[in-house]
């Protein structure tokens, strides 16, 4: 993990408490009464300091969000990853068309022949096919549907 340690030189400066809060709260709040106090005890700081630090990291957009992370598949909805091959000169126009679908939760441009990759989340599993067909007809490009067939691991954690 030496590359990871070296990376810290180029990351924004965090105070010790900020670092502790970022690292600890990525792994999940304990579901107990007074959960922030429980975290504060673990970290050896006051509960108020945890709450203030958390609010400040959110205000500065270092944290995008603090709350429950939902598993759309387990909520009975549809979820898939899809990709498109979009010519450079048409990219902005197609981005606007794809993003206009509220079922598009994330959309990334990637450096590959398949250069647009988005996650579709729908309330009912059957809606995925309908939304893909609608995107194809709105854009005129083929959508490659790549739903997960097996999940081996999901755990996003960025130590700082």
């Amino acid at each position, binding site marked *: *993990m030496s590359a990871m340690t070296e990376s810290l030189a180029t990351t924004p400066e965090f105070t010790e408490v900020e670092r502790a809060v970022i690292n600890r709260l990525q792994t999940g709040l304990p579901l107990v009464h007074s959960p922030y106090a429980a975290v504060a005890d673990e970290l050896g700081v006051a509960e108020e300091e945890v709450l203030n630090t958390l609010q400040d990291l959110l205000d500065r957009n270092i944290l995008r969000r603090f709350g429950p992370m939902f598993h759309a598949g*387990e909520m009975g909805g549809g979820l898939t990853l899809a990709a498109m091959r979009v010519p450079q000169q048409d990219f902005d126009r197609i981005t606007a068309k794809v993003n206009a679908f509220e079922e598009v939760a*994330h959309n990334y441009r990637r450096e590959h022949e398949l250069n647009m990759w988005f996650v579709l989340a729908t309330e009912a599993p059957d809606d995925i096919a309908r939304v893909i067909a609608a995107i194809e007809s709105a854009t005129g490009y083929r959508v490659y549907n790549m739903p997960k067939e097996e999940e081996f691991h999901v755990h996003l954690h960025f130590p700082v």
Partner: protein
Amino acid sequence: MSISTSRSDQSYVLCALDRKLILATQGGLPLATDPWGALGEQLGLPADEVLARFQRMQNAGVIRRVAAVPDHYRLGYRFNGMTVWDVRDDAITDMGLQVGELPFVSHCYRRPRHLPNWTYNLFAMVHGISREEVEDKASQIHDLLGDTCEGHTILYSSAILKKTGLRLRKS
């Protein structure tokens, strides 16, 4: 450790109150000494019931966890590489579990090929502060896959076009 296979066969059915709790916290959990009580006040539920419902949804996997979601770019992880691998079908489950256990792999899934255009069936997401770091991690995956892998590539993200996260609609 969070190795799991899909559990869609035993999907948890959200009741109306669970949905209300999800809608009330999509923007975030209240930052207060008693967040469960604060939510309960909004929804007319006792704090204990709010907490119990969160525990139940987390146990059922509807909620992965209640956690901070960082902007990884702002933490210094500027390179996000979706590494994709063409792994022999008879080895994919075993190799997927092993790749998923690598500490630097944040997501790992098997997905369908689309022949002849798309030959890759194993996706492993890797983040780093440089391309070299992502490539170094990809080569560790390559070593692990050995001769079960017939080809791979890395798709770097060059722009976030949209990021609203997973949301329930209010309707």
